[in-house]
Every structure is written in C-alpha cells, then in structure tokens.
C-alpha cells in the first residue's frame, strides 16, 4: 500500500513539473528510463546513440501530449515512455527496411502512435519550414512556437511575450506566418526575396 502511495506521489510530482514547464523533470525521466530503453533498443539492433536519441524523442512526445492535453494517464509514465520508444524505434527499423526479428517483452502499449502531423515529419516542405524557423527572428520565433507547438492561447501568449492583448497577438501571428512563408519559399528556391 505504501508503495502505491509512493508511486502516485512521485508520478504526480513529475507530471505537475512537466505541466509547469520544468525541464528538469524530463532529465529525471531520462535517467530513470534509460536502462529499460537501452535494453529494448540494443536487443533490437540499435546502438547506444540510438538509445539516447529515441529516449529523448519519446520524452518530447510525452511532453507534447501533456501540454496538448492529449495525454491519458492510464499507466505509469515509464510504460508510456517505453511504448513510445518502441513505436519510434520499430518505425525507424521498418523505414530502413532492416531484416529484423523483434525481441520485445509483452508491454501494454500506451502510446497511440504518430499523429497525422507527426507523420508529415519527413515531408520536404516540412523540412523547409523547420529551416525557415531557424532564420526567423523574434518575436515571430517565440510567438509561432508558443501558438502552434505549445498550443498556448492568445491571452497566454500576450502575457508571456508582453503583448497588449490577444488581438495584438492574433494580428502579429498573421504577419509572422507571412514572414515564415516567404522564408520557406526562399529555402525551397521558389522566391527571389
């Protein structure tokens, strides 16, 4: 019974920390889950570098699900992380068409797989937008990230970035989108600006 209390306390602490944007919680989760993810990946043709990479991506997906409100707390965080890492790794393996025989424990799959937006990751235009984001300055950089990635409301963004109100943010966001589109065209070699 005591273990159960411990489990819920620790998990809810971590969840709260993640909700509040405390990145140290991610570092803690990284260290806590490294061994199990390493065991999964190394047993399935991966390397130490793959372990780090896949675990980091799994943690970011967890972070996104929590922030986007789509994380369903049905299992332990470690179960979610393991299942996510497993999906990422097996997707990569199949993408590289490696001849694999999957060695895996029977784990409850808490991750529902990639969302439609995540599936677009390797799209050429998506990669161009990513590159354009590297070039765009502030406040557009922060504003676009807060709105489209962290899914903050206009009011929250106004408070965070010091805009007068939500309407100002909305009009600024429109301008930023235009700037980003121009940069994307440049990256893709479609424009001459």
């Amino acid at each position, binding site marked *: 019974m005591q273990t159960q209390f411990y489990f819920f306390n620790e998990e809810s602490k971590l969840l709260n920390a993640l909700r509040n944007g405390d990145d140290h919680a991610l*570092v803690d989760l990284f260290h806590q889950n490294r061994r199990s993810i390493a065991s999964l990946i190394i047993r399935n043709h991966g390397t130490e570098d793959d372990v*780090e990479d896949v675990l980091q991506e799994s943690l970011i997906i967890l972070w*996104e699900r929590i922030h986007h409100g789509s994380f369903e707390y049905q299992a332990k965080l470690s179960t979610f992380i393991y299942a996510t890492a497993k999906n990422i790794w097996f997707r990569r393996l199949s993408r590289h068409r490696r001849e694999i025989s999957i060695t895996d424990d029977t784990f409850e799959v808490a991750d529902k797989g990639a969302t439609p*937006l995540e599936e677009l990751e390797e799209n050429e235009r998506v990669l161009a937008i990513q590159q354009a984001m590297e070039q765009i300055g502030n406040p557009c950089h922060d504003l676009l990230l807060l709105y489209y990635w962290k899914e903050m409301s206009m009011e929250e963004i106004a408070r965070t970035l010091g805009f007068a109100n939500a309407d100002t943010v909305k009009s600024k966001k429109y301008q930023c989108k235009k700037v980003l589109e121009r940069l994307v065209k440049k990256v893709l070699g479609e424009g001459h600006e």
Partner: protein
Amino acid sequence: MSDVNSEHWTMDSDVLESFILQRIDESETGKLAAHLKLCLDCRQRVQTEKEFIAGIRRYGRLEMKYRLQQQVQHNQNKRYDWTQAASIAAAIILMFGALFVFREFGDFGMTKNSIREIVLPGDKPSQQAFWITGRVVTTARHYHETRSHQSNEFIIKKGHAVQTVIIHHAMFSQLPHTQHTDEPSSIRAYLERTPQGMQLTLYTDSMTDTLIAGIEPVTPDSLIVFYQRMQIAFHIPGGWAGKI
C-alpha cells in the same frame, strides 16, 4: 469561427487552423471533412496548413531535443565532477593518511622525535629489558633482496652508529598474560640489551623458516622489522644504538 458550413470553409484561416488543431466539435468536424471529399483545392489547402504546423512543431521538437541533450550532458558532467571530486578527496585523505603513518613510523629524516611511546607503564624489569609493542605498518608481498637474511642476527649501521640485533621468535601462547594487548595490528616483543647486542623476541602465532627477512633502522630510536609479509615498526627506548 464563422461560416463553418459554407462550401469552401478552408478559405477561412481561423477555421482551417482550428480544424487541423482539432479545436472544433466532432459534429462540425464531420461536416467540414465531408466537404473536403468533394473539393480538391480545399484538401490542398488543408495539406499546406498541416505542413506549416508540422514544420513549426518539428522545429520546436528539435530545439527541445537539443536543450534536453545539453541538460542531460550537463547533469552527467555534474555527476562525473562529483565522482571525480570524491575520488580526489579520497586520494588526498589516503595521501595524508599514508603521510601520517610514514611520519609516525617511517621517517628517515633522523629528526623525528614524536614516535609514539610504546613501552607500557610498569613494564620495565630493568634498564636493559623492556616490553614493547610493534605496529604493523604495511603488509608487503615482497622484500627487497638486500634486506633478506638467513640467520636471526643482523648488524645495522646508520651514520657512525652500529648495532647487532638478534631476533627471536616465540609463540603468542608463551606471552605472559599481563603483556596481552587488545590493540589491533600490534605485535608484542621483548627487548633486551646484552653484551652480544640487542635481542628482540617477537610473540606471534605464526612460525616460518624465514622468520625474519630484514631489519632496518628508521630513526635513532626506531626500527622496522620485515617479518613474513609485515613491516613492524618498533620504538626502541634509549635508541637502537644504545649500549649497555
């Protein structure tokens, strides 16, 4: 969210965005999706907007991944630094510990006067005989050959001082009960000054053929006896070179 039921709803950027970010009720989403099946341009606009958001999210993810990598690295470095600091601290403690032992029992500088008094009070039967306690300083696997000696008689020299030391061994069971000590890593011995030289009788449980491998003066009043795999430091009251 105006005009969601109008034919080309994808022309409204707010509706388009809400549709992709799933911020529209399921019932309305169904209607909008139904229109997409009939409108190629609308599907294209949805796809373009999806790519736009996916690109920003991919960038955000990579940026966060980079930050996480840095933090994990920093954290590992901190752990490593801590371990390293602990190792250095342990090494310093060991070094000072070794230095202390060396100064207590192994100072070759001839100036050391603070060797612990080993003679127990009331143990002096005469000026020429003493009960003393030797401290096991280290255990060494091998001795230097020059220290080896097949007999139990040694002539030790340091500067102008010369002394003959005869080492005897006696079983611990022969040690008088009053001379027993609870001190760890210690060996009781009986020191006698005779006209033939200094006689040192060690009381230990072990008995080997090569009873004494070597003997070496350390300071004017201390010796180290190399015995089996031990180095036993003795303080010699009156100095090892003292004659009767």
